[in-house]
């Protein structure tokens, strides 16, 4: 076993590209998932949504109603422990490529039509208490409010803090303390602004924050560079429902490992008041579609 572990470390140090890309890809998927689950809290407002089932934080006042002011406020983006969401995930190649720009109809409204985006695998994601997992003993001072799945198989969790200024990514951890592929325990040197609130069309920000810790049982050191820009997204037509006006949030993430090459991803998300992320497309560094996700009630 010790030899195997050493080999994995050596592989990493020697720049095993596929392995690193895999790891980076998993991390890049993270924030989008987080945004989806944040939206779950608001999904409860929809009669078709399944939220707050057993979540202790989902009280009678947790239901959120959009005011359609085109701004995503902190209350309209708030996540709750116990909230759940169903997400339809499809990896490229897709039967139908999603429209990423939309069209302007005769009334001058932008419409993004994803009604034909029905392929993929449905996954359920839930929000857990960010301060109550196995990692709490490692970082007693972390101050995380929420833990949300970062990847499809939910083996990685993002630990977040939320406040009036937005949603902040504090760390990435394995869902379990001793996973077969090795423990992940990566902490950001400063909270990373995944979502700033209130969020309006035209808002943009950048963040470059160092990370360190353990990735799949191997030492990790790197830097995340984020560029986020929000524009008016129009109305998003999904297979089960439509919502709008949305905010189209384009996020370009560059993950630089101190021990290897740099990975880039672009994510385009449609955010809606009280529902969070409704749909998302993930592109590689060359602009090719890697994955499409959308919210199902």
């Amino acid at each position: 076993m010790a030899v195997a572990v050493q080999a994995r470390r050596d592989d990493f140090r020697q720049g095993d590209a596929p392995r690193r890309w895999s790891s980076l890809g998993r991390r890049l998927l993270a924030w989008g998932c987080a945004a989806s689950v944040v939206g779950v809290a608001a999904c409860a407002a929809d009669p078709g949504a399944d939220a707050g089932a057993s979540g202790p934080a989902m009280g009678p006042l947790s239901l959120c109603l959009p005011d359609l002011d085109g701004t995503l406020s902190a209350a309209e983006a708030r996540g709750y422990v116990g909230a759940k969401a169903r997400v339809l995930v499809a990896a490229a190649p897709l039967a139908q490529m999603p429209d990423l720009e939309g069209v302007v109809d005769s009334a001058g409204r932008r419409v993004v039509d994803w009604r034909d985006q029905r392929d993929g695998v449905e996954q359920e994601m839930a929000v857990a208490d960010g301060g109550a997992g196995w990692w709490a003993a490692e970082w007693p001072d972390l101050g995380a409010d929420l833990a949300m799945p970062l990847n499809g198989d939910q083996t990685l969790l993002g630990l977040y803090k939320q406040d009036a200024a937005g949603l902040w990514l504090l760390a990435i951890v394995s869902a379990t303390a001793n996973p077969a592929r090795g423990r992940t325990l990566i902490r950001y040197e400063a909270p990373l602004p995944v979502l700033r609130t209130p969020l309006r069309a035209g808002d943009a920000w950048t963040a470059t924050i160092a990370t360190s810790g353990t990735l799949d049982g191997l030492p990790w050191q790197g830097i995340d560079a984020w560029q986020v820009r929000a524009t008016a997204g129009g109305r998003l037509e999904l297979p089960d429902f439509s919502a709008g006006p949305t905010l189209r949030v384009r996020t370009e993430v560059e993950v630089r490992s101190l021990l290897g090459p740099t990975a880039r991803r672009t994510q385009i998300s449609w955010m809606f008041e009280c529902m969070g992320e409704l749909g998302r497309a993930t592109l590689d560094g060359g602009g090719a579609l890697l994955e499409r996700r959308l919210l199902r009630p």
Partner: protein
Amino acid sequence: MSRRCAAARTEARRVPRRGRSAVAVLLLSAMFGLAALPARRVEAALPTTPVTRSQETFSSLGQGLWDRDEAGFAAAGLLRTRLELLSNLDLDHGVGPSGQPLFPSPLANGAEPLLTHADMRLRLDLAAYAPRGMVTVRGRLDLLDNVALGGAPAGPPTASIGQRPPAAPLTLRRLWAEALLPFGVLAAGRMGSHWGLGLLTHGGDCHDCDRGDAADRVALAVPALGLVWAIAYDFTAIGPTQPRPNGSAALDLDPADDVRTWTFAAVHALGPEIRARRQGAGRTTVEGGVIASHRKQSLDVPRHWLEQEGVVEASATPLDAGQIVRRDAAATALDLWLRLQRRSLRVELEAAVLSGRIGQASLLPGVELRDPVESLQWAIALESRYGAELEGLSFGVDGGAASGDPAPGFGVRQPIAGARPLPGDLDGAQAAPPRDRRLDNFRLHPDARIDRLLFREIVGTVTDAAWIRPHVRWARAWHGGDTCVVADLAAVATFALQPNSTPSGARELGVELDPTLSLTLRGLLIEWQTAVLLPGAGFDNAFTGAAAQPAWMSRLFLGFAF
């Protein structure tokens, strides 16, 4: 038969009441996830006066109006207290998959599974009559309605020498007026609503009832061709309002978001006195009627009523057009009621069907679901008795069924933002669009009771079930009817129509025995109600393997009528 005793023994009365649109309310409220509504016949343990008979059908409009020289005033009331023992109503089931028990248990672990309760209520029915018999104004007040005795001690419990007054000691349930016209009776105001056996809408007038429907209504009843033809318009919901600039009455801010209900009825009902005379003469009496009620809503402002319901926090931001959502909801209910009395035989039947569609079920402004939520619900109930109602031995068989929905749980309580029920849960929302767009369980009004434990207490009301209820009664009156003793025994066997609705997936819900012994002394009614429930396999816990265990209750009812 003693009339006084009959008046107090309200179980005997089966009088069709005023039809209304709550039928549609029931459907719509269920679809919108509101709390369940309605109920059953009204049988006040009060003297039979025009005041207390105000809940009868459209045909009873105008009762008490006759030519009088001076203004008149009438009042009747009942003060009731109920003392209860409830044992093992969770049936030793444990919690369901969502962590909820079937029924609350004592706080102390390991204690005897016995819960106690005592409450009270004073109900006042009032009527004022104008001179010359043209107009009457009526009302109903409930004081300390179902207030728990000892529930609000002043100070530390051991040192308390009194009770804190409730925040709302008085509830004005009804207030309406009737005017006699040359061609009929016109009524307007907030009036009680009841029809037939009370499956759809129930006035809650029976002495042990806890709820009751009231409609903000304008109604006109016209007698013709041996029937009473009635039409009613209900101001069911008008949405957000705003005071006028001069500070007087409020304005309905948008007529398009109103919920409008129209009800038409045709009924032939004779009333208890005529019925008794015909029975005494050996005549066969057939009564009956039909109501059709249609409800419609085009737009909705969910924030307005969600704030009122406390589901969302009240916002300081004024309402604007952005809060309007398309609703496109419509529901129609049809209800047939028949009553046959021939010598010692009485048979009464009610059958109802509701059909509804909510074109847009979303509560979120800006969000629209692709498909509508639809509903088709039905219920039927039959009651029979052979023998005098309140003299000697009589017996009969009751039965009925109420449609179910295949979603888990019975669907009595359907929280607005609650989670979907899991298989094995007792209750929960029956529609969950877009995956489940059907809402087909018919919920009888909670006061339309068929038992004392299973549906009344544990499930909450009758839905998704079929039942058969043989019963027998012995009654005796003395002193010209001033004193009356009645002993009842009923056995109720119930089955689920949709096995998915029960905690275990089995259809058998159980058998319940409901004995009653009551004594009426002029205005005093003492009634001892008991019940034993032998639960069926439907209440077994499929996850823990625990078999449902028997439960029992005992209730002492004291009623003081005037």
